[in-house]
Protein backbone atom coordinates (compact mmCIF):
# COMPACT_ATOMS: atom_id res chain seq x y z
CA UNK A 1 0.00 0.00 0.00
CA UNK A 2 2.70 2.37 1.03
CA UNK A 3 4.63 1.55 -2.10
CA UNK A 4 1.73 2.27 -4.39
CA UNK A 5 1.06 5.52 -2.56
CA UNK A 6 4.69 6.48 -2.95
CA UNK A 7 4.66 5.59 -6.62
CA UNK A 8 1.65 7.82 -7.07
CA UNK A 9 3.56 10.63 -5.47
CA UNK A 10 6.42 9.81 -7.82
CA UNK A 11 4.20 10.05 -10.85
CA UNK A 12 2.78 13.24 -9.48
CA UNK A 13 6.28 14.65 -9.15
CA UNK A 14 7.14 13.68 -12.67
CA UNK A 15 3.90 15.23 -13.90
CA UNK A 16 4.65 18.41 -12.06
CA UNK A 17 8.07 18.51 -13.62
CA UNK A 18 6.49 18.23 -17.01
CA UNK A 19 3.89 20.86 -16.30
CA UNK A 20 6.59 23.17 -15.04
CA UNK A 21 8.37 22.60 -18.34
CA UNK A 22 11.58 22.66 -16.53
CA UNK A 23 14.62 20.49 -16.69
CA UNK A 24 16.11 21.40 -13.39
CA UNK A 25 14.86 19.94 -10.17
CA UNK A 26 16.26 22.77 -8.12
CA UNK A 27 13.41 25.05 -9.04
CA UNK A 28 10.62 22.57 -8.82
CA UNK A 29 10.49 19.98 -6.12
CA UNK A 30 10.23 22.50 -3.38
CA UNK A 31 6.90 22.05 -1.77
CA UNK A 32 6.88 19.69 1.19
CA UNK A 33 4.48 17.15 -0.26
CA UNK A 34 6.04 14.09 1.17
CA UNK A 35 7.72 13.54 4.45
CA UNK A 36 11.14 12.69 3.09
CA UNK A 37 11.28 15.71 0.95
CA UNK A 38 10.64 18.59 3.23
CA UNK A 39 13.57 20.66 2.16
CA UNK A 40 14.37 21.73 -1.36
CA UNK A 41 16.54 19.00 -2.74
CA UNK A 42 19.24 20.91 -4.44
CA UNK A 43 19.22 24.20 -2.68
CA UNK A 44 22.31 24.83 -0.69
CA UNK A 45 22.28 26.59 2.62
CA UNK A 46 23.76 30.05 2.87
CA UNK A 47 26.72 28.77 4.85
CA UNK A 48 27.36 26.11 2.18
CA UNK A 49 27.50 28.85 -0.37
CA UNK A 50 30.16 30.62 1.57
CA UNK A 51 32.13 27.40 1.67
CA UNK A 52 31.61 26.88 -2.04
CA UNK A 53 32.78 30.28 -2.98
CA UNK A 54 35.95 29.78 -1.02
CA UNK A 55 36.81 26.80 -3.15
CA UNK A 56 34.88 27.21 -6.38
CA UNK A 57 34.68 30.98 -6.77
CA UNK A 58 34.35 30.86 -10.54
CA UNK A 59 31.16 28.96 -10.64
CA UNK A 60 29.44 30.52 -7.69
CA UNK A 61 30.43 34.02 -6.88
CA UNK A 62 31.74 36.35 -9.48
CA UNK A 63 32.75 39.07 -7.10
CA UNK A 64 34.78 36.68 -5.00
CA UNK A 65 36.44 35.31 -8.12
CA UNK A 66 37.33 38.80 -9.25
CA UNK A 67 38.68 39.66 -5.83
CA UNK A 68 40.90 36.64 -5.66
CA UNK A 69 42.32 37.04 -9.12
CA UNK A 70 43.21 40.60 -8.16
CA UNK A 71 44.94 39.19 -5.16
CA UNK A 72 46.95 36.92 -7.40
CA UNK A 73 48.04 39.77 -9.63
CA UNK A 74 49.00 42.03 -6.76
CA UNK A 75 50.69 39.10 -5.10
CA UNK A 76 52.91 38.38 -8.05
CA UNK A 77 54.14 41.97 -8.03
CA UNK A 78 55.11 41.62 -4.41
CA UNK A 79 56.49 38.12 -5.03
CA UNK A 80 53.88 36.62 -2.75
CA UNK A 81 53.04 33.85 -5.11
CA UNK A 82 54.99 30.80 -6.13
CA UNK A 83 55.10 28.99 -9.44
CA UNK A 84 53.49 25.59 -9.48
CA UNK A 85 53.31 23.16 -12.37
CA UNK A 86 50.53 20.63 -12.59
CA UNK A 87 51.05 17.67 -14.89
CA UNK A 88 47.67 16.26 -15.82
CA UNK A 89 46.63 12.69 -16.58
CA UNK A 90 47.69 13.02 -20.21
CA UNK A 91 51.10 14.38 -19.28
CA UNK A 92 50.29 17.97 -20.26
CA UNK A 93 51.77 20.70 -18.10
CA UNK A 94 49.94 23.70 -16.67
CA UNK A 95 51.91 26.46 -15.01
CA UNK A 96 50.15 28.56 -12.43
CA UNK A 97 50.95 31.16 -9.81
CA UNK A 98 49.73 30.26 -6.35
CA UNK A 99 49.49 32.81 -3.50
CA UNK A 100 51.38 31.92 -0.33
CA UNK A 101 49.06 30.21 2.11
CA UNK A 102 46.74 28.70 -0.48
CA UNK A 103 46.33 24.95 -0.80
CA UNK A 104 47.09 23.21 -4.07
CA UNK A 105 43.49 21.98 -4.21
CA UNK A 106 42.10 25.51 -4.06
CA UNK A 107 44.70 26.72 -6.54
CA UNK A 108 43.91 23.93 -9.00
CA UNK A 109 40.22 24.74 -8.86
CA UNK A 110 40.85 28.45 -9.35
CA UNK A 111 42.63 27.62 -12.58
CA UNK A 112 40.15 24.96 -13.70
CA UNK A 113 42.71 22.23 -13.37
CA UNK A 114 41.00 18.87 -13.18
CA UNK A 115 41.79 17.82 -9.66
CA UNK A 116 38.91 16.22 -7.80
CA UNK A 117 38.04 17.45 -4.34
CA UNK A 118 35.08 15.39 -3.14
CA UNK A 119 35.29 16.45 0.52
CA UNK A 120 36.40 20.01 -0.28
CA UNK A 121 39.53 19.82 1.77
CA UNK A 122 38.08 18.37 4.97
CA UNK A 123 40.45 15.38 5.01
CA UNK A 124 37.73 12.83 4.41
CA UNK A 125 38.67 11.53 0.98
CA UNK A 126 41.69 10.89 -1.20
CA UNK A 127 40.46 12.39 -4.45
CA UNK A 128 42.89 15.34 -4.49
CA UNK A 129 45.86 12.96 -4.46
CA UNK A 130 48.91 14.50 -6.15
CA UNK A 131 52.40 13.15 -6.66
CA UNK A 132 55.27 15.51 -5.88
CA UNK A 133 57.56 14.94 -8.83
CA UNK A 134 60.86 15.84 -7.18
CA UNK A 135 61.98 14.27 -3.93
CA UNK A 136 63.77 17.52 -3.11
CA UNK A 137 60.45 19.36 -2.95
CA UNK A 138 58.71 16.50 -1.21
CA UNK A 139 61.27 16.76 1.60
CA UNK A 140 60.47 20.45 2.04
CA UNK A 141 56.93 19.56 3.06
CA UNK A 142 56.04 18.78 6.62
CA UNK A 143 55.34 15.12 7.26
CA UNK A 144 51.73 14.14 6.65
CA UNK A 145 49.58 13.92 9.78
CA UNK A 146 47.92 10.62 10.74
CA UNK A 147 44.65 11.85 9.25
CA UNK A 148 46.28 12.55 5.89
CA UNK A 149 48.05 9.20 5.94
CA UNK A 150 44.74 7.48 6.67
CA UNK A 151 43.35 8.96 3.47
CA UNK A 152 46.51 8.33 1.45
CA UNK A 153 46.14 4.64 2.38
CA UNK A 154 43.13 4.63 0.06
CA UNK A 155 44.56 6.70 -2.77
CA UNK A 156 44.86 5.08 -6.16
CA UNK A 157 48.38 4.76 -7.50
CA UNK A 158 50.07 5.77 -4.25
CA UNK A 159 53.79 6.58 -4.52
CA UNK A 160 56.58 7.43 -2.09
CA UNK A 161 56.01 11.13 -2.74
CA UNK A 162 52.20 11.17 -2.73
CA UNK A 163 50.33 13.89 -0.83
CA UNK A 164 46.81 15.25 -0.68
CA UNK A 165 46.51 18.47 -2.66
CA UNK A 166 44.46 20.06 0.11
CA UNK A 167 47.31 19.60 2.59
CA UNK A 168 50.08 21.06 0.45
CA UNK A 169 50.06 24.77 1.26
CA UNK A 170 52.01 27.24 -0.85
CA UNK A 171 55.11 28.59 0.90
CA UNK A 172 58.18 30.32 -0.56
CA UNK A 173 60.42 27.20 -0.42
CA UNK A 174 57.98 25.40 -2.71
CA UNK A 175 58.48 27.82 -5.59
CA UNK A 176 58.88 25.70 -8.72
CA UNK A 177 57.19 22.57 -7.34
CA UNK A 178 55.82 20.12 -9.90
CA UNK A 179 52.74 18.04 -9.07
CA UNK A 180 51.44 15.14 -11.12
CA UNK A 181 47.78 14.18 -11.07
CA UNK A 182 47.76 10.38 -11.11
CA UNK A 183 46.23 8.71 -14.14
CA UNK A 184 43.36 7.28 -12.19
CA UNK A 185 41.78 5.05 -14.77
CA UNK A 186 45.01 3.22 -15.32
CA UNK A 187 45.46 2.74 -11.62
CA UNK A 188 41.90 1.61 -11.24
CA UNK A 189 42.56 -1.13 -13.75
CA UNK A 190 45.58 -2.24 -11.74
CA UNK A 191 43.56 -2.08 -8.55
CA UNK A 192 41.09 -4.78 -9.40
CA UNK A 193 39.55 -4.83 -12.82
CA UNK A 194 41.30 -6.92 -15.41
CA UNK A 195 40.52 -5.52 -18.85
CA UNK A 196 39.74 -8.10 -21.48
CA UNK A 197 40.95 -7.67 -25.05
CA UNK A 198 38.30 -6.55 -27.50
Amino acid at each position, binding site marked *: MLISRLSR*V*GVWMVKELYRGRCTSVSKNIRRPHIQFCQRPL*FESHPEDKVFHSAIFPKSHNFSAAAASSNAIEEGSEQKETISVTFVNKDGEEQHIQVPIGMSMLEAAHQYDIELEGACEG*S*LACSTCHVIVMDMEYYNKLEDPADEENDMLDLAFGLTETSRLGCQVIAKPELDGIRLAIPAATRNFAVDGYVPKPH
Partner: protein
Amino acid sequence: MAKLLARTLLTRDYASLSTNPFRVCVIGSGPAGFYTAEKMLKAHARAQVDIVDRLPTPFGLVRSGVAPDHPETKVVINQFSRVAKNERCAFFGNVTLGSSISLSELRELYHVVVLAYGAESDRVLGIPGEDLIGVHSARQFVWWYNGHPDGRSLNLDLNSTDTAVILGQGNVALDVARILLRSTTELAKTDIASHALAALEESSIRKVYLVGRRGPVQAACTAKELREVLGIKDLFVHIKEADLHKTLADEEEMKNSRIQRRVYELLSKAATSASSHPISGQRELHFVFFRKPDRFFESDEKRGHVAGVHFEKTILKGVGSGRQIAAGTGQYEGIDCGMVLKSIGYKSVAVDGLPFDHQKGVVPNVGGRVLSDTSGDPTLLENGLYVSGWLKRGPTGIIATNLYCAEETVASISEDLEQGALAS
Protein backbone atom coordinates in the same frame (compact mmCIF):
# COMPACT_ATOMS: atom_id res chain seq x y z
CA MET B 1 1.42 4.24 -15.07
CA ALA B 2 4.54 3.21 -16.94
CA LYS B 3 3.04 4.73 -20.05
CA LEU B 4 2.43 8.02 -18.34
CA LEU B 5 5.97 8.03 -17.05
CA ALA B 6 7.31 7.19 -20.46
CA ARG B 7 5.38 10.03 -22.01
CA THR B 8 6.56 12.40 -19.35
CA LEU B 9 10.19 11.44 -19.70
CA LEU B 10 10.03 11.77 -23.46
CA THR B 11 8.15 15.02 -23.74
CA ARG B 12 10.37 17.08 -21.52
CA ASP B 13 10.97 20.44 -22.98
CA TYR B 14 14.31 20.48 -24.69
CA ALA B 15 13.67 23.75 -26.52
CA SER B 16 16.50 25.60 -24.89
CA LEU B 17 18.83 22.68 -25.21
CA SER B 18 20.35 20.68 -28.00
CA THR B 19 17.91 19.89 -30.79
CA ASN B 20 19.47 16.51 -31.21
CA PRO B 21 20.12 15.33 -27.68
CA PHE B 22 21.92 12.18 -26.72
CA ARG B 23 19.56 10.87 -24.07
CA VAL B 24 21.05 9.06 -21.12
CA CYS B 25 19.21 7.56 -18.16
CA VAL B 26 21.12 6.74 -14.99
CA ILE B 27 19.33 4.44 -12.56
CA GLY B 28 20.37 5.20 -9.00
CA SER B 29 21.47 8.50 -7.51
CA GLY B 30 24.29 7.41 -5.21
CA PRO B 31 27.97 8.14 -5.86
CA ALA B 32 28.10 5.76 -8.85
CA GLY B 33 25.04 7.38 -10.43
CA PHE B 34 26.12 10.96 -9.86
CA TYR B 35 29.74 10.43 -10.92
CA THR B 36 28.47 8.70 -14.08
CA ALA B 37 26.14 11.62 -14.79
CA GLU B 38 28.92 14.12 -14.17
CA LYS B 39 31.41 12.39 -16.45
CA MET B 40 28.73 11.91 -19.11
CA LEU B 41 27.76 15.61 -19.12
CA LYS B 42 31.41 16.57 -19.30
CA ALA B 43 32.27 14.16 -22.09
CA HIS B 44 29.34 15.00 -24.39
CA ALA B 45 27.86 18.42 -24.98
CA ARG B 46 24.75 16.78 -26.50
CA ALA B 47 24.19 14.48 -23.55
CA GLN B 48 21.08 14.99 -21.48
CA VAL B 49 21.05 12.93 -18.36
CA ASP B 50 18.03 11.88 -16.34
CA ILE B 51 18.87 10.41 -12.96
CA VAL B 52 16.17 8.13 -11.57
CA ASP B 53 15.92 6.87 -8.00
CA ARG B 54 13.39 4.70 -6.21
CA LEU B 55 13.56 7.01 -3.17
CA PRO B 56 12.20 10.57 -3.29
CA THR B 57 15.60 11.79 -2.13
CA PRO B 58 18.90 11.61 -4.02
CA PHE B 59 22.48 10.63 -3.01
CA GLY B 60 21.98 6.96 -2.08
CA LEU B 61 24.53 5.70 0.40
CA VAL B 62 26.02 9.15 1.00
CA ARG B 63 22.74 9.73 2.73
CA SER B 64 21.87 6.31 4.11
CA GLY B 65 25.27 4.62 4.34
CA VAL B 66 27.83 7.15 5.53
CA ALA B 67 27.75 7.30 9.32
CA PRO B 68 25.93 10.27 10.87
CA ASP B 69 29.08 11.35 12.68
CA HIS B 70 31.01 11.65 9.42
CA PRO B 71 29.60 14.91 8.03
CA GLU B 72 32.88 15.65 6.24
CA THR B 73 32.43 12.54 4.08
CA LYS B 74 28.99 13.80 3.07
CA VAL B 75 30.42 17.05 1.73
CA VAL B 76 30.55 15.35 -1.68
CA ILE B 77 26.81 16.10 -1.82
CA ASN B 78 27.79 19.66 -2.77
CA GLN B 79 29.50 18.39 -5.87
CA PHE B 80 26.59 16.12 -6.77
CA SER B 81 24.16 19.00 -6.28
CA ARG B 82 26.11 21.06 -8.79
CA VAL B 83 25.73 18.19 -11.27
CA ALA B 84 21.99 18.14 -10.61
CA LYS B 85 21.83 21.88 -11.21
CA ASN B 86 23.27 21.46 -14.69
CA GLU B 87 20.55 22.39 -17.18
CA ARG B 88 21.16 19.17 -19.06
CA CYS B 89 20.54 17.06 -15.97
CA ALA B 90 17.31 16.16 -14.18
CA PHE B 91 16.50 14.08 -11.13
CA PHE B 92 13.36 11.94 -10.90
CA GLY B 93 12.75 10.60 -7.41
CA ASN B 94 10.24 7.96 -6.41
CA VAL B 95 10.54 6.06 -9.65
CA THR B 96 11.27 2.36 -9.17
CA LEU B 97 12.91 0.33 -11.89
CA GLY B 98 10.85 -2.82 -12.41
CA SER B 99 7.56 -1.51 -10.99
CA SER B 100 7.16 2.18 -11.99
CA ILE B 101 8.84 1.48 -15.30
CA SER B 102 10.51 -1.58 -16.79
CA LEU B 103 14.04 -1.85 -18.06
CA SER B 104 12.87 -2.57 -21.61
CA GLU B 105 10.68 0.56 -21.58
CA LEU B 106 13.62 2.66 -20.44
CA ARG B 107 15.85 1.18 -23.11
CA GLU B 108 13.31 2.24 -25.72
CA LEU B 109 13.16 5.77 -24.32
CA TYR B 110 16.86 6.45 -24.06
CA HIS B 111 19.90 5.99 -26.23
CA VAL B 112 21.80 4.79 -23.21
CA VAL B 113 20.73 3.36 -19.87
CA VAL B 114 23.34 3.12 -17.13
CA LEU B 115 22.45 0.97 -14.14
CA ALA B 116 23.97 2.26 -10.93
CA TYR B 117 21.50 1.10 -8.31
CA GLY B 118 24.10 -0.49 -6.07
CA ALA B 119 23.56 -3.35 -3.66
CA GLU B 120 20.43 -3.19 -1.56
CA SER B 121 20.47 -6.67 -0.13
CA ASP B 122 22.78 -8.70 2.09
CA ARG B 123 24.99 -11.70 1.81
CA VAL B 124 23.85 -14.51 4.05
CA LEU B 125 25.93 -16.90 6.13
CA GLY B 126 23.65 -19.86 5.49
CA ILE B 127 24.09 -21.28 9.00
CA PRO B 128 21.43 -22.52 11.47
CA GLY B 129 19.55 -19.91 13.47
CA GLU B 130 20.19 -17.04 11.08
CA ASP B 131 16.52 -16.03 11.14
CA LEU B 132 16.19 -15.90 14.95
CA ILE B 133 14.80 -12.66 16.36
CA GLY B 134 17.67 -10.34 17.21
CA VAL B 135 19.85 -11.34 14.25
CA HIS B 136 20.00 -8.44 11.81
CA SER B 137 22.15 -7.39 8.92
CA ALA B 138 24.38 -4.39 9.56
CA ARG B 139 22.82 -2.77 6.49
CA GLN B 140 19.40 -2.81 8.15
CA PHE B 141 20.88 -1.26 11.29
CA VAL B 142 22.72 1.40 9.26
CA TRP B 143 19.55 2.26 7.31
CA TRP B 144 17.72 2.48 10.65
CA TYR B 145 20.09 4.97 12.27
CA ASN B 146 20.42 6.97 9.06
CA GLY B 147 16.68 7.41 8.64
CA HIS B 148 16.33 5.43 5.40
CA PRO B 149 12.57 5.10 4.82
CA ASP B 150 12.85 1.30 4.60
CA GLY B 151 14.86 1.13 7.84
CA ARG B 152 12.36 2.89 10.05
CA SER B 153 10.32 -0.15 10.79
CA LEU B 154 13.25 -2.32 11.87
CA ASN B 155 12.22 -4.26 14.96
CA LEU B 156 15.27 -3.55 17.07
CA ASP B 157 15.43 -4.42 20.74
CA LEU B 158 18.30 -2.62 22.46
CA ASN B 159 16.89 -2.98 25.97
CA SER B 160 16.89 -6.65 26.82
CA THR B 161 20.56 -7.45 26.50
CA ASP B 162 23.89 -5.94 27.47
CA THR B 163 25.87 -7.67 24.72
CA ALA B 164 25.93 -7.36 20.96
CA VAL B 165 28.02 -9.43 18.56
CA ILE B 166 29.04 -7.91 15.27
CA LEU B 167 30.17 -10.38 12.62
CA GLY B 168 32.81 -8.84 10.40
CA GLN B 169 35.57 -6.29 10.94
CA GLY B 170 35.21 -3.99 7.95
CA ASN B 171 34.34 -0.30 8.08
CA VAL B 172 30.60 -0.96 8.25
CA ALA B 173 31.18 -3.19 11.29
CA LEU B 174 33.26 -0.45 12.90
CA ASP B 175 30.62 2.21 12.15
CA VAL B 176 27.95 0.05 13.73
CA ALA B 177 30.10 -0.64 16.81
CA ARG B 178 30.83 3.08 17.18
CA ILE B 179 27.15 4.00 17.04
CA LEU B 180 26.36 1.39 19.70
CA LEU B 181 29.22 2.50 21.97
CA ARG B 182 29.49 6.28 21.63
CA SER B 183 27.76 8.43 24.20
CA THR B 184 24.37 9.63 23.06
CA THR B 185 25.25 13.18 24.13
CA GLU B 186 27.85 13.11 21.38
CA LEU B 187 25.57 11.34 18.91
CA ALA B 188 22.87 13.94 19.51
CA LYS B 189 25.07 16.51 17.77
CA THR B 190 25.22 14.41 14.60
CA ASP B 191 22.96 13.70 11.66
CA ILE B 192 21.51 10.57 13.32
CA ALA B 193 17.79 9.85 12.86
CA SER B 194 15.81 10.99 15.88
CA HIS B 195 14.07 7.64 16.36
CA ALA B 196 17.49 5.97 16.49
CA LEU B 197 18.87 8.49 18.97
CA ALA B 198 15.86 7.98 21.23
CA ALA B 199 16.32 4.20 21.13
CA LEU B 200 20.07 4.44 21.74
CA GLU B 201 19.50 6.69 24.74
CA GLU B 202 17.56 3.81 26.31
CA SER B 203 20.00 1.16 25.11
CA SER B 204 21.28 -1.35 27.67
CA ILE B 205 24.12 -2.57 25.43
CA ARG B 206 27.45 -2.18 27.19
CA LYS B 207 29.59 -4.82 25.55
CA VAL B 208 30.28 -5.22 21.84
CA TYR B 209 32.24 -8.05 20.22
CA LEU B 210 33.73 -7.47 16.78
CA VAL B 211 34.42 -10.90 15.37
CA GLY B 212 36.56 -11.74 12.35
CA ARG B 213 37.36 -15.04 10.68
CA ARG B 214 40.98 -14.10 10.17
CA GLY B 215 43.64 -12.22 12.13
CA PRO B 216 44.53 -8.59 12.83
CA VAL B 217 46.74 -8.46 9.72
CA GLN B 218 43.72 -9.28 7.53
CA ALA B 219 41.18 -6.98 9.25
CA ALA B 220 39.20 -5.32 6.47
CA CYS B 221 38.80 -1.89 8.07
CA THR B 222 40.72 1.28 7.33
CA ALA B 223 42.98 3.14 9.74
CA LYS B 224 40.68 6.15 10.04
CA GLU B 225 37.69 4.12 11.19
CA LEU B 226 39.81 2.01 13.52
CA ARG B 227 41.46 5.06 15.10
CA GLU B 228 38.01 6.49 15.67
CA VAL B 229 36.51 3.46 17.39
CA LEU B 230 39.63 3.00 19.53
CA GLY B 231 39.42 6.64 20.54
CA ILE B 232 35.87 6.51 21.93
CA LYS B 233 35.79 8.17 25.35
CA ASP B 234 35.67 5.90 28.41
CA LEU B 235 35.85 2.73 26.39
CA PHE B 236 37.60 -0.42 27.53
CA VAL B 237 39.21 -2.07 24.51
CA HIS B 238 40.28 -5.68 24.63
CA ILE B 239 42.49 -7.46 22.11
CA LYS B 240 44.14 -10.78 22.97
CA GLU B 241 47.88 -10.35 22.73
CA ALA B 242 48.28 -13.90 21.45
CA ASP B 243 46.18 -12.97 18.40
CA LEU B 244 48.76 -10.37 17.43
CA HIS B 245 51.40 -13.00 16.72
CA LYS B 246 52.48 -12.72 13.09
CA THR B 247 53.50 -15.57 10.83
CA LEU B 248 55.93 -15.23 7.91
CA ALA B 249 52.98 -15.18 5.54
CA ASP B 250 51.47 -12.32 7.56
CA GLU B 251 54.74 -10.38 7.32
CA GLU B 252 54.70 -10.91 3.58
CA GLU B 253 51.10 -9.63 3.30
CA MET B 254 51.96 -6.56 5.33
CA LYS B 255 55.01 -5.83 3.24
CA ASN B 256 52.78 -5.45 0.22
CA SER B 257 50.03 -3.39 1.80
CA ARG B 258 50.51 -0.09 3.52
CA ILE B 259 46.94 -0.10 4.83
CA GLN B 260 47.28 -3.55 6.42
CA ARG B 261 50.53 -2.42 8.02
CA ARG B 262 48.95 0.66 9.55
CA VAL B 263 45.82 -1.16 10.73
CA TYR B 264 47.94 -3.83 12.39
CA GLU B 265 50.08 -1.17 14.11
CA LEU B 266 47.01 0.53 15.52
CA LEU B 267 45.62 -2.76 16.80
CA SER B 268 48.86 -3.81 18.45
CA LYS B 269 49.30 -0.39 20.03
CA ALA B 270 45.74 -0.59 21.39
CA ALA B 271 46.42 -4.08 22.74
CA THR B 272 49.50 -3.08 24.68
CA SER B 273 48.30 0.26 25.98
CA ALA B 274 44.91 -0.92 27.24
CA SER B 275 44.26 -1.54 30.92
CA SER B 276 43.74 -5.18 31.81
CA HIS B 277 40.25 -4.84 33.30
CA PRO B 278 37.32 -2.56 32.64
CA ILE B 279 36.35 -0.10 35.34
CA SER B 280 32.88 -0.91 36.60
CA GLY B 281 30.20 0.48 34.33
CA GLN B 282 32.65 1.16 31.50
CA ARG B 283 31.52 0.19 28.01
CA GLU B 284 33.57 -2.57 26.40
CA LEU B 285 34.76 -3.35 22.92
CA HIS B 286 36.30 -6.78 22.30
CA PHE B 287 38.14 -7.58 19.08
CA VAL B 288 37.87 -11.32 18.50
CA PHE B 289 40.02 -12.85 15.78
CA PHE B 290 40.20 -16.30 14.19
CA ARG B 291 36.54 -17.21 14.77
CA LYS B 292 34.10 -18.40 12.12
CA PRO B 293 30.35 -18.32 12.93
CA ASP B 294 29.00 -21.85 13.02
CA ARG B 295 25.43 -21.39 14.28
CA PHE B 296 23.26 -19.05 16.30
CA PHE B 297 21.62 -20.48 19.39
CA GLU B 298 18.16 -19.84 20.64
CA SER B 299 17.27 -18.45 24.05
CA ASP B 300 15.74 -20.89 26.57
CA GLU B 301 13.58 -18.19 28.15
CA LYS B 302 12.47 -16.33 25.05
CA ARG B 303 11.52 -18.68 22.28
CA GLY B 304 12.58 -17.62 18.83
CA HIS B 305 15.12 -15.11 20.15
CA VAL B 306 18.87 -15.33 19.72
CA ALA B 307 20.93 -15.96 22.84
CA GLY B 308 24.39 -16.30 21.38
CA VAL B 309 26.69 -17.35 18.58
CA HIS B 310 28.67 -20.53 18.29
CA PHE B 311 32.05 -20.05 16.62
CA GLU B 312 34.58 -22.44 15.18
CA LYS B 313 38.18 -21.47 15.85
CA THR B 314 40.21 -20.97 12.71
CA ILE B 315 43.79 -20.92 11.49
CA LEU B 316 45.10 -19.25 8.36
CA LYS B 317 45.91 -21.24 5.26
CA GLY B 318 47.82 -19.88 2.29
CA VAL B 319 46.02 -20.14 -1.04
CA GLY B 320 48.74 -18.78 -3.28
CA SER B 321 49.72 -15.28 -4.40
CA GLY B 322 50.12 -14.23 -0.77
CA ARG B 323 46.44 -14.64 0.11
CA GLN B 324 45.41 -16.44 3.26
CA ILE B 325 41.98 -17.80 4.09
CA ALA B 326 40.46 -19.01 7.36
CA ALA B 327 40.19 -22.76 7.85
CA GLY B 328 38.19 -24.38 10.64
CA THR B 329 40.02 -26.32 13.35
CA GLY B 330 37.12 -28.33 14.73
CA GLN B 331 37.33 -26.50 18.08
CA TYR B 332 34.34 -24.46 19.12
CA GLU B 333 33.55 -21.60 21.47
CA GLY B 334 30.39 -19.60 22.17
CA ILE B 335 29.66 -15.97 22.95
CA ASP B 336 26.38 -15.14 24.72
CA CYS B 337 24.55 -12.12 23.34
CA GLY B 338 21.05 -10.79 22.78
CA MET B 339 21.73 -9.10 19.47
CA VAL B 340 23.76 -9.99 16.39
CA LEU B 341 24.60 -7.67 13.51
CA LYS B 342 25.96 -9.40 10.44
CA SER B 343 28.38 -7.16 8.60
CA ILE B 344 29.58 -9.64 6.02
CA GLY B 345 28.86 -7.74 2.82
CA TYR B 346 26.10 -6.42 0.63
CA LYS B 347 24.53 -8.05 -2.38
CA SER B 348 22.96 -6.56 -5.49
CA VAL B 349 19.45 -7.45 -6.57
CA ALA B 350 18.56 -8.36 -10.15
CA VAL B 351 15.67 -6.81 -12.08
CA ASP B 352 13.61 -8.31 -14.89
CA GLY B 353 15.33 -8.40 -18.23
CA LEU B 354 18.80 -7.79 -16.84
CA PRO B 355 21.59 -10.34 -17.23
CA PHE B 356 22.85 -11.15 -13.75
CA ASP B 357 25.71 -13.17 -12.33
CA HIS B 358 24.10 -14.62 -9.23
CA GLN B 359 27.33 -16.16 -8.04
CA LYS B 360 29.25 -12.90 -7.97
CA GLY B 361 26.17 -10.77 -7.30
CA VAL B 362 27.00 -8.36 -10.14
CA VAL B 363 25.87 -7.65 -13.69
CA PRO B 364 28.26 -9.37 -16.14
CA ASN B 365 30.16 -6.62 -17.94
CA VAL B 366 33.31 -5.61 -19.74
CA GLY B 367 34.45 -2.15 -18.75
CA GLY B 368 30.85 -1.25 -17.89
CA ARG B 369 29.28 -2.67 -21.08
CA VAL B 370 26.60 -5.15 -20.04
CA LEU B 371 27.11 -8.65 -21.41
CA SER B 372 24.12 -10.73 -22.48
CA ASP B 373 25.06 -13.68 -20.29
CA THR B 374 27.62 -14.88 -17.81
CA SER B 375 29.55 -17.06 -20.27
CA GLY B 376 32.26 -14.38 -20.32
CA ASP B 377 32.11 -13.99 -24.11
CA PRO B 378 32.96 -10.28 -24.55
CA THR B 379 31.26 -10.04 -27.92
CA LEU B 380 27.73 -10.69 -26.66
CA LEU B 381 26.85 -7.15 -25.65
CA GLU B 382 23.53 -5.60 -24.63
CA ASN B 383 23.29 -2.59 -26.91
CA GLY B 384 22.94 0.72 -25.09
CA LEU B 385 23.02 -0.86 -21.64
CA TYR B 386 25.81 -0.11 -19.19
CA VAL B 387 26.56 -0.56 -15.53
CA SER B 388 28.50 1.42 -12.95
CA GLY B 389 29.39 1.20 -9.25
CA TRP B 390 28.67 -1.73 -6.95
CA LEU B 391 26.36 -3.37 -9.45
CA LYS B 392 29.32 -3.49 -11.82
CA ARG B 393 32.22 -4.48 -9.60
CA GLY B 394 30.69 -5.74 -6.35
CA PRO B 395 30.09 -3.97 -3.03
CA THR B 396 33.59 -2.80 -2.13
CA GLY B 397 35.60 0.38 -2.15
CA ILE B 398 35.13 3.94 -1.05
CA ILE B 399 33.15 6.81 -2.56
CA ALA B 400 36.09 7.77 -4.76
CA THR B 401 36.29 4.26 -6.24
CA ASN B 402 33.04 5.09 -8.01
CA LEU B 403 34.70 8.06 -9.64
CA TYR B 404 37.14 5.85 -11.49
CA CYS B 405 34.49 3.22 -12.05
CA ALA B 406 32.20 5.82 -13.66
CA GLU B 407 35.08 7.15 -15.74
CA GLU B 408 35.62 3.71 -17.17
CA THR B 409 31.94 3.19 -17.98
CA VAL B 410 31.65 6.61 -19.62
CA ALA B 411 34.81 5.89 -21.65
CA SER B 412 33.12 2.72 -22.93
CA ILE B 413 29.98 4.68 -23.85
CA SER B 414 32.06 7.31 -25.67
CA GLU B 415 33.91 4.64 -27.59
CA ASP B 416 30.67 2.93 -28.63
CA LEU B 417 29.18 6.27 -29.62
CA GLU B 418 32.17 7.09 -31.82
CA GLN B 419 32.02 3.71 -33.48
CA GLY B 420 28.36 4.23 -34.26
CA ALA B 421 27.21 1.37 -32.07
CA LEU B 422 24.61 3.59 -30.42
CA ALA B 423 21.66 4.94 -32.38
CA SER B 424 21.35 8.70 -32.00
